[in-house]
Structure formats: structure tokens, C-alpha cells
């Protein structure tokens, strides 16, 4: 409906911005308290430098590959947690949920001799059902998520103990499941993976520019796209190069080189969930419910369904994390998904830049933060610190990340951004 025809030039939908404007805009956001991925990336750099200086073995090819396999479970659980955190909720049971799903997997594989695909599917379904129950209790019965998942945290710990007959562990000998964390892509396929990622990223960016330019809408400058793509190519290239170095103690007997299989799995999950969050209506509604639940409700969004689905995604991802953990250890015990896994995962999401207050966060945060957590854990292990020290340090890091989150929020409020 035409309300008023104005003769003035139409308002630029969003003006073209030069590279310089992008850079200055970035610094303005930083100053305004929107730190984004900066703390995680800076932390990663500093930590790597410190550990490299203190323990020369830290940057070795073997340890580098370890970082990926050690960080996988945490990163995957953290990716699921991002959805719950985006709504301003919390899932404290994600760690033990992943343990229960891993126990289901091991039980079916080893004691029931099910084929791997059925066992994995059942483990995933277990996660989804857990999420449905938690989400329904939160969204429909309206128990605070903190209480629901704290109760589930205790209960799942018990379920894991019961399933594993009071502490016995079940070994997993299925070659497919074990391959996830213990086998690598061939060297050539590792490079193909890199090329696919870089070309795919570039193609998505260019297509976006083209479709926007065709409508006369503002676009990112090509120089910015070139810099980002180049950055991914260089960092990815270095990573693949190091992962392709022989890291077996006895290369003649068994060769150990290439990108661990879990890495493309994480990349796939990252791409799929990022796509869903940023490009689909469902993702938009997640942000809306996290930003202003009442506004979302008035916009006709089914808020309860969104909230339940976030818990389903979280527990489902926890199940995948559990499968990865079972693969890494070749076995499942009552502590799979226990001890510090959950706090590490929450820490990963928050360190990466996902807010505990809801409405702000990305799936990428979980992976970046997961890398930070993996480096801390791995580096301190190399330094020979006890588990006690590790717990204390991780607790402090989590607190620091949450503190940065709270402070940057206050800063943003002061600068009128939130």
C-alpha cells in the first residue's frame, strides 16, 4: 500500500562500504563492547606462544593432531549448547547426556552386536528423546532450565552408572566407530578437503555479492572477501600441512598422517548449523526468542516449539559428542561425558563469544572456544600439572569468559548498543 510517494532519492537499503569503513566499523564495535571472536582468537595465539616457549613438544605434529581429537567432544557439545544459550537458557546435563548416549552405543555394539549404523542411530535418538523431555519440562511445565538440567545432570550420572554395572567399562571394537577419532584422511584427500572449504567459502561470498548487487543493494568490498578467503586458505593450509606430517613413532609399521576424520565431521556440523542459524527462518526465530520472547510471541512465532527444539538440538549434539568420546577411548565408562566435560563445553561457547544472557552467539564460537579449551587442557597436561590444578585453572578461565561477557554487555548498554 502506498502511504506517501516521496520524490526524494530512495533511502539506500544498506550502503556500499569500503574496506576502510569495514575496518573502522570493526574497531567501533570493539570499543562499544562487541568483542566478537577477538578474546578467543587472541587467547588462542597467546596460549600457543606461551606453551610453545615452555614446552617445545607442544607445537609438534603429533601434539597438534592431539589437539583436534581431544577438543572434538567438547566442541561438538558446545555447538549444541550455543542453541540453548542463545535462548538465555542453560543445559547442565549435556555432559552426562553424552555419556548416557555413549553407553547406549557401547552396549548395543558390544553386548548386543548391533551393526554400527543402527547403534549410532539409536544413540542419536536417545539424545533427541532426552532433549524432548528436557525441553518440554522447560517450555511447557515452565520449570527453570537450570533446575531441570541440574536434576538431569544427577539423574543421567546415575543412569550411566546403572547401565555400566557400577563402574565397569564396555570396550568398543567396532572399526567404523573407532575410526572417527583414530583414523585419518589420506594425504591427498586432506588437501582436497582444504580446497573444497576455501572454494566453497569464496563461492558463497561471491554469489551473495552478485545477488545483492543485482538488486542495487550494498555489498561487501571484494578486497574484504579476498582477505577473509586468503586467511582461511593460509591458516587451513598450515593446519593441513602439519597434519600431513608423519607422526607415527614407527612409520615403517604403521603410518600416521593426514587430517583426523573427526575434523571434517566438525566442519560439516559447523557448516550445517551455521547455515540453519543464519540463513533460515528457524534460525532467525531462535535469535528472536532469545532477544525478546514476548516480541517473538506477538510476531506469531511458536515460542514453546522453538525452546523445545533448542534442547533437542543440544542433547542431539551431546549424543554425537558421546559417540566421538567412545571412539576416542575405544570404550565407554561411567565418566565418559563426566567430570569437567560440561564446564569445558559451556566455557568453550562463552569464550568464543556466545552470551550467557541470550540472543547473541554463533556456532563458530563453540569451535573457536573449544580450541582455546583444548589448548589449555593439553598444554597444562604437557607441563605436568595435576588434575586439581587443571580444574582450578579451567574454572578461572570460565569465570573470566563469563566476566568478559557481562562487562561487554554493560559496555554495550552504556554505548546504547543494547
Amino acid at each position, binding site marked *: 500500500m502506498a502511504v*506517501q510517494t516521496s520524490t526524494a532519492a530512495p533511502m539506500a537499503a544498506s550502503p556500499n562500504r569500503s574496506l576502510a569503513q569495514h575496518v573502522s566499523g570493526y574497531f567501533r564495535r570493539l570499543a562499544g563492547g562487541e568483542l566478537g571472536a577477538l578474546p578467543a582468537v587472541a587467547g588462542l595465539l597467546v596460549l600457543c606462544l606461551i606453551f610453545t616457549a615452555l614446552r617445545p613438544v607442544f607445537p609438534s605434529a603429533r601434539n597438534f593432531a592431539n589437539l583436534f581429537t581431544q577438543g572434538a567432544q567438547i566442541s561438538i557439545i558446545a555447538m549444541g549448547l550455543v542453541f540453548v544459550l542463545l535462548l538465555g537458557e542453560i543445559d547442565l546435563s549435556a555432559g552426562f547426556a553424552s555419556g548416557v548416549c555413549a553407553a547406549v552405543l557401547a552396549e548395543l555394539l558390544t553386548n548386543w552386536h548391533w551393526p554400527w549404523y543402527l547403534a549410532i542411530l539409536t544413540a542419536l535418538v536417545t539424545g533427541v528423546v532426552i532433549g524432548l523431555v528436557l525441553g518440554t519440562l522447560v517450555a511447557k511445565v515452565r520449570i527453570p532450565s537450570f533446575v531441570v538440567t541440574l536434576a538431569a545432570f544427577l539423574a543421567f550420572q546415575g543412569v550411566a552408572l546403572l547401565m555400566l554395572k557400577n563402574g565397569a567399562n564396555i570396550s568398543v571394537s567396532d572399526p567404523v566407530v573407532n575410526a572417527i577419532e583414530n583414523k585419518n584422511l589420506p594425504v591427498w584427500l586432506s588437501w582436497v578437503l582444504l580446497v573444497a572449504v576455501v572454494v566453497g567459502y569464496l563461492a558463497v561470498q561471491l554469489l551473495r555479492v552478485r545477488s545483492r548487487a543485482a538488486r542495487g543493494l550494498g555489498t561487501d568490498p571484494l578486497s574484504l572477501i579476498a582477505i577473509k578467503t586468503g586467511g582461511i586458505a593460509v591458516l587451513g593450509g598450515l593446519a593441513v600441512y602439519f597434519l600431513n606430517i608423519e607422526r607415527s613413532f614407527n612409520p615403517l609399521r604403521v603410518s600416521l598422517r593426514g587430517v583426523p576424520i573427526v575434523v571434517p565431521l566438525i566442519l560439516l556440523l559447523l557448516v550445517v548449523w551455521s547455515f540453519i542459524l543464519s540463513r533460515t527462518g528457524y534460525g532467525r526465530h531462535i535469535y528472536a526468542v532469545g532477544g525478546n520472547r514476548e516480541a517473538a510471541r506477538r510476531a506469531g512465532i511458536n515460542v514453546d516449539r522453538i525452546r523445545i527444539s533448542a534442547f533437542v538440538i543440544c542433547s542431539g549434539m551431546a549424543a554425537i559428542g558421546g559417540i566421538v568420546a567412545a571412539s576416542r577411548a575405544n570404550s565407554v565408562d561411567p565418566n565418559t561425558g563426566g567430570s569437567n566435560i560440561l564446564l569445558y563445553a559451556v566455557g568453550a561457547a562463552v569464550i568464543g563469544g556466545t552470551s550467557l544472557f541470550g540472543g547473541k552467539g554463533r556456532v563458530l564460537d563453540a569451535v573457536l572456544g573449544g580450541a582455546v579449551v583444548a589448548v589449555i587442557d593439553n598444554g597444562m597436561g604437557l607441563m605436568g600439572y595435576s588434575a586439581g590444578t587443571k580444574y582450578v585453572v579451567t574454572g578461572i578461565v570460565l569465570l573470566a569468559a563469563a566476566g568478559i561477557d557481562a562487562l561487554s554487555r554493560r559496555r554495550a548498554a552504556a554505548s546504547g548498543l543494547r
Partner: protein
Amino acid sequence: MTTPLLELHGINKSFGAVHVLRDVDFTVYAGEVTALVGDNGAGKSTLVKCVGGIYPYDSGEYVFDGHPVHVHSPREAGALGVEIVYQDLALCDNLDIVQNMFLGRERRSGLILDEPTMEQMAAQTLDRLSVRTVASVRQQVASLSGGQRQTVAIAKAVLWNSRLVILDEPTAALGVAQTAQVLELVRQLADNGLAVVLISHNMNDVFAVADRIAALYLGRMAAQVKASDITHSQIVELITAGRSGDIGLAPAHASTAADIDLDEVD
């Protein structure tokens, strides 16, 4: 007389023990601005939320465009062409202007959000409303001023093929110039054939744009009259006492203090 676009008959609404709306009748015509006035807590926002499907009403009849309808959700109200700009602006601070304007009704091409189309439509709508104050439609709503937010909320309401636009105190937080702009916009909407309901406490605003005035008093509809048939002071009396001369509620429901006042005047 043309059929009204919206007719409410005998609407009742309680929040627990609090009976907020009592047998409310309310009629709105297309092409007119109907002002809904009443004191704080009279039930204006509640009535509007019942119309918008936010609150279910306990009893009463809801007739839209001559047809009895049942509106149970904001989506159903939206399907009828009812758009509400809420007093507590329903915007998501963490989303940008485009994302807010299309919230819940995103354009899709296949599975993917059609961002270019949405951005274009949002820009065009703001442009039609002569909005020049926002730098970019990709700005986060958190970074907008109160007046700019109000404009976004109104633009959101007229973006759709709306037939009835309800504005709950749209000028309450605005400066002089922006108030004038919003009122002009309200008038334009009606002149373009939409039915507009304007809630306001400012009688100057009401008389500036309204064709009809409806006054709520403690949850009852005291009177619905043409703006030209009533004076400023009569409206104030209807708002504060529920009765003015021979218009308004039956004495049993109107304020006794006012009755005394009236007797003295007589």
C-alpha cells in the same frame, strides 16, 4: 452507513479475579481514525491485545468485515489484516530493522531467507513513510532512538496488506516534531482507506486526527461519538467520570463524585 470493519460486542476479560473489560462494545470504520481514550488502567491496552489475539477474551463477539470470527493468536489477527503497534514496542533488540520488520513472516526462497527482497521492501516502506533518520536498515534496533524505534514499529505494521492498524500510545515518548510526523502518518493511513485505532492520552493529538472517539472508563465503554459532536471538556469528563451530561454510562456505573459535580453545574 457502511458496515464497520471491526465490531466488538459485549467483550469481557478478566485476569484472575480482576475484571478488566466489562461488556465492551467497540466499532471501527475503514478510512477513519478512531481514538481510544481512557485513564491509566482503564483497559485500553488489554482491549487492543484481545483484538490482536494476544489475550483470549472470556466472552463476547468479534465481527470483522461483517463476518463473525474467532481470533486466538497473533497470526490469525495478522491473517485478517489486523496489525498492532504495541505500547511496549515489540521489537527484538538483537535483530536489525529488516529482521524486525519481517519477524515471524520472513520471505523465503526455498529453504533460505530471501534477505535481498526483505531488505528492499523494508527500505521502500521506510522511504514511503519519509523516514530519513535511520542510517541503514541493517542497523541493530538496540542502537535506535525511541522515535526511530516507534517508526520501525509503525513501518512494520504497514508493511503488510493491513486493513486495521492499531497504535497504542505511539507518540507518548516522542518530541514535538516526531509526534507531528507520526500523527500525519496516522492520518495518511486512514486517508488511504485503512481503519486506524489510535490510543492516546493527549487530547490535542486526539482532536487533531480522530474522526471518532471512544472513551473507556474502568473497563466499560463510556461512549463512542464523532469527534465533531463532542468537546474537549466533555471527553475529559467521560475519561475521568465515565459520564458527561446525558452521554456516557448509566449513573450506576459512573463515578458518584462526578454526579455531584454535574448536579452542581446544573
